[in-house]
């Protein structure tokens, strides 16, 4: 192989290696936090606060039971280091059972404990293992938020209303931006985005006053209106670019061939714009579903689901693993919604093909 050719291939090899390294790094940056929160949501409280933190949740927990000063000494194995750490010294079996379930994520009944203690007479210390309840955090989360079903319904209601409002207003605005020339178009297009530059908290406080006067304070429609303010801007931009990508002549052809304006729009432009509209709906849904700060201020007796989660998980009782589980549960509806419309959104990434 001649030397310039070899050099060419070596340089090319180095370049593509660097490129893949970059791609992998970026992918890891996106995947790692997600992995971390998923993993954390399955960890026991004891594990979540131990150091080093286990990367993956364990399926079984190993214990040592021995005689202690006050009664029985319970130690639990750290899965990372493999060493046993003494966590409890008590003669109250009920207390020990509760502790094992709450802190160690392993439900062990009192008769089971008595059985192990009985073994102490023949062997000391007693080693035993028990399968960990992986869904422990989730069960606890649903216990805490059991009364939050109305809040869940309310959140879905608000998200749906936000989609309807921002899609109908933003979609019409987007169509106008894409199809018509009018005075101050560029300025208006920019000023629509301007709304998004204000942080939600800055809008929320004056909104309390405005919504209270309108009679919408602490009602789903009020929150949906507030969320729509920001979302209309996004929807306008998304739909405008989608409508711009659809040739006007398709609609004109329909008109020439016998359709009125509305028929022409519904029959030609609308089906082609569906991916964009779906993407806009997705953004609106996720935005409305996850929003907490404004909801915290704009609701009082009728909080949204995100507010309920926030209130029950944050504060003195807050546990990171429980918060992670709550976060996962919160994400599920958004993930489901995204999956339902993913076909359309993917179409948008591929562009509208004419």
């Amino acid at each position, binding site marked *: 192989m001649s030397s310039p050719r070899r050099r060419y291939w070596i340089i090319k090899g180095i370049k593509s290696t660097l490129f893949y390294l970059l791609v992998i790094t970026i992918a890891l940056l996106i995947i790692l936090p997600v992995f971390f929160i998923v993993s954390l949501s399955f960890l026991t409280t004891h594990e979540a606060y131990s150091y080093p933190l286990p990367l993956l949740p364990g399926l079984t927990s190993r214990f040592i039971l021995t005689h202690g000063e006050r009664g029985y000494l319970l130690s639990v194995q750290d899965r990372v280091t493999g060493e046993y750490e003494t966590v409890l010294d008590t003669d109250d079996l009920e207390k020990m059972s509760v502790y094992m379930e709450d802190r160690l994520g392993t439900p062990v009944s009192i008769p089971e404990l008595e059985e192990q203690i009985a073994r102490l007479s023949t062997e000391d210390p007693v080693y035993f293992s028990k399968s960990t309840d992986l869904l422990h955090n989730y069960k606890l989360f649903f216990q805490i938020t059991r009364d939050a079903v109305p809040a869940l319904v309310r959140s879905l209601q608000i998200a749906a209303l936000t989609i309807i409002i921002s899609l109908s207003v933003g979609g019409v605005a987007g169509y106008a931006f894409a199809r018509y020339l009018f005075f101050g178009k560029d300025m208006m297009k920019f000023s629509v985005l301007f709304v998004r530059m204000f942080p939600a908290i800055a809008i929320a406080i004056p909104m309390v006053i405005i919504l209270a006067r309108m009679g919408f304070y602490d009602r789903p429609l009020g929150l949906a209106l507030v969320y729509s303010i920001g979302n209309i801007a996004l929807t306008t931009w998304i739909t405008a670019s989608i409508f711009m990508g659809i040739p006007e002549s398709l609609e004109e052809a329909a008109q*020439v061939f*016998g359709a009125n304006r509305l028929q022409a729009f519904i029959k030609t432009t609308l089906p082609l714009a569906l991916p964009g509209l779906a993407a806009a709906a997705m953004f609106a849904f996720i935005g409305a579903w996850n929003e907490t700060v404004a909801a915290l201020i704009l609701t009082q007796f009728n909080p949204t689901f995100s507010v309920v989660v926030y209130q029950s998980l944050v504060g003195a009782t807050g546990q990171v693993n429980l918060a992670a589980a709550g976060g996962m549960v919160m994400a599920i509806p958004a993930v489901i919604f995204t999956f339902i419309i993913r076909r359309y959104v993917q179409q948008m990434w591929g562009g509208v093909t004419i």
Partner: protein
Amino acid sequence: MATLTFDHVTKRFGKVVAVNDFSLKVEEGEFLVLLGPSGCGKTTAMRMVAGLEDVTEGSIFIDEEEVTFLPPRKRNVSMIFQNYAVWPHMTVYENIAYPLRLKKVPKEEMNGIVHNVARMVKIENLLKRLPAQLSGGQQQRVAVARALAVEPKIFLMDEPLSNLDAKLRGSMRTELKAIHAKTGATSVFVTHDQSEAMSMADRIVVMKDGKVIQVGTPDDVYDKSATVFVADFIGTPPTNFINVEKKISNGVCQLINPHFELDLAEGCDEYVRAYTKYDLILGVRPENINVVDENHALFSAECRVAEPQGSHQIIAVELDDSFLKVVAPAQPKIYPGEIVHLNFKQETLRFFDPETELSIDHPGDDQT
């Protein structure tokens, strides 16, 4: 079949006048071509017929009925768009059938019509496909079929061939013309391609800056161009223009240029004699310049560029500061650097007024 009449139609976009006082009658079954450079208002004029643009002033009639204020769907015209405007989410069948559905044509009949027109444009085997699975030429055929299916009074075509590659354009041109001959539908065809216009039109309307410059048969606009613009716009290579001075000596009308003194033959000089000014623009088409031997030469010049075309060759000689293009027979071959001897076919010469740029045998604007 119908007639189409423009009656002093004007279209303004804000301050821009797109179509200026356009009056014309398209006869029944005529194939009319609107020709002009981009921005000349030809497409706007057509879109006003379709109802896709408002008419600022004047009125448009189809047969005796005024359609100026009718919405597009009530005008009974069909249109082929430049980008085909085939609906991408409908199959070919649906594309052709949808206009018929809108017109509430009974299902059986509709089915028959769709297959009929599909056969006519040779896309019968593609009816179940989506437009994305078709080539540009096939999509164009769908657009033609769709336009044929509704049996319109007026057939509008907005640069329908400009998105096709050169070879396909040529064959589609022939096919469109054949379809027109078969259906006999009154057609208006917009194009900026003069050779397309020449080959397809019954009559050509040459437009510039929103104004009609000349209306006539392809031969008229080619041989009797009314203005410098028309003579320049029509024909490839375009007409050569040479500034000359008129002089009458011994009863012979002469055209003087630093390179030549041309004695106009009897019969070719009548308009020049009647012309009252002395400066003229001489317009001569490249094929009307003959390469001759030295004895018959009006003037000689050095060949700068030679473009062989197979059936003929185009050579450019330098005259003053511009090139004079000559269409010469393919043989004998002429090479750059060679001195060529040239003469004009006198009976084909055109004369223009340098100030108005109008042909001197076309005084005023009464070309129609």
